[in-house]
């Protein structure tokens, strides 16, 4: 600050203020989104079940769909040692990270299948088909039994066995390796 008089500084600031309009609270760009277009895009499912559609699924129907649409990559049961192995129950001595031994939320299964599967026709499954596949995978991983029906109410209530092991990142930088 040495060498700059306070008067000059004040004048400088005033000039700056005069020539630089404040950033507005809003620019008014973009257009309002209608509820219909939000609904058409919003496919996300939360772990509390928000976003889950109507419908239900069971193991037997899921098995048929899985064998028809998923087996080419995942094997007929999902337990085959593919790079994308899905099935191995919690406690099995399997290195692969599967739904049964690694996934912390059952809702994620529905969300992911619906948005990204099958690989050769992503987003092509009906909600009902996704529920069936979800039930098939949960049962195959010994999380539900083969008679349990999965729907918007029951799916978020399932407690996945691996959830107990999840911890939040606690790395903070500084002189510590974590």
């Amino acid at each position: 600050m040495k060498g700059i008089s306070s008067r000059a500084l004040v004048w400088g600031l005033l000039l700056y203020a005069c020539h630089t309009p404040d950033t507005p609270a809003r620019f008014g760009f973009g257009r309002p989104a209608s509820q219909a277009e939000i609904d058409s895009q919003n496919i996300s499912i939360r772990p509390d079940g928000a976003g889950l559609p109507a419908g239900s699924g069971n193991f037997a129907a899921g098995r048929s769909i899985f064998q028809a649409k998923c087996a080419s990559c995942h094997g007929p049961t999902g337990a085959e040692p593919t790079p994308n192995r899905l099935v191995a129950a919690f406690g099995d001595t399997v290195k692969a990270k599967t739904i049964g031994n690694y996934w912390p939320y059952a809702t994620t299964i529905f969300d992911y299948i619906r948005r990204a599967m099958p690989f050769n026709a992503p987003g092509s499954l009906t909600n009902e088909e996704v529920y069936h596949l979800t039930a098939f995978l949960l049962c195959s991983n010994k999380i539900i039994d083969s008679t349990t029906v999965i729907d918007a109410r029951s799916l978020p209530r399932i407690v996945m066995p691996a959830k107990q092991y999840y911890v939040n990142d606690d790395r903070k930088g500084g002189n510590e390796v974590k």
Partner: protein
Amino acid sequence: MEEKNDKKIPRRAMLKAAALSATTALMGGVKVPDPVKTGVIPDPTKVQGAVPGKLGTRSPFEQPIKKASEISGRTPLQDLYGIITPSDLHFERSHAGVPLIDPQKYELLIHGMVERPTVFTLKDLKRFPALSRIAFIECSGNFRTGKETMTPQEICGLTSQSEWTGVMLSTLFREVGASPKATWFLAEGSDAAVMTRSIPMEKGWKDAMIAYAQNGEAIRPEQGYPARLFLPGWEGNMNIKWIRRIEVSDQPFMTREETSKYTETIKDHKIRQFSFDMDARSIITYPSYPQEVEKGWIEIRGIAWSGRGKIDRVEISTDGGKHWNNAVLQEPVLDKAHTFFRYLWRWDGNPAEIMSRAVDDTGYRQPFMKQLIDARGSDMGGYHLNPVTAWLIERDGKVLFKPEKRK
């Protein structure tokens, strides 16, 4: 008379004809061999050169390429200088390929816990104040080891740096009236994986950007054309490309990519989640495999970076880690950015082991693999591995990677 005739032929056409005949044209029905392939290069002061083109070219003698697999392409770090990654060499990683998106039809929807759910076109996004920032993006699964004949590209080529330009997400949050009670937002891409990640609102308000430009031009398709999320210093996967939707919420969505992937097993069977920050790291890119060196002065060069801040210093050892000296950091040293370092070393011709170790401005020092194993257990996953990387210099000048053991 002759002079007049000369003037009737446009200079440009003459130059073009000369250049063509000098390089690829048919001369008397005989195709002139490609001088680069034959190694017979005419004296460049005795023939006209190529005329200006619509796009620049690389010298045909320089052919840096990405190392591509079905799911990723890795940056050839050993071929680069300075801190900016040429856009066509920026690493790429996708989960369902690179989508083709019409910029005229592109829209970004922001909704959820906001006062005004809004749709922004690309044109809308570009009307907002345009900020630029130079920073790296690194995949959190960016460490490979296993054999001596590995290049920096193969070891950790899933990091690259660009100048990103776009609108700050905080500006868009203000525009839509994001709720102060919101704690997380979901970012969703419009690729065939419809990739989603949950991100704390705090990051969104702090320094997140919706980027539509990279190194001065429209962002490349492989990096998210026409717009992507850019989260300085955070793991690459969260920087959702081809972003189409942001849902403001009060909890994480627990998507597949933040539960079954991009989490790491640590000690006591624990699974660490939401590991956002990229820890400080460095790699010597010269000398490295497959380069060879000669006895005498060698300038050791490389890059260092931290997702938490600026690089404070880079320490170099040329004796296998017994002694360390600071490298020179090349300006600019930027926050959350690749920083170029150099270190002059006189090699006496004896076998040597050289390595670099980054320290960032939080005081974090890049660990050895053993420290990572000690901290996380030998079953630690493959994410967020940033070990000190050593090169072995053989008596004949060959440079080999010293593979780290994972156990």
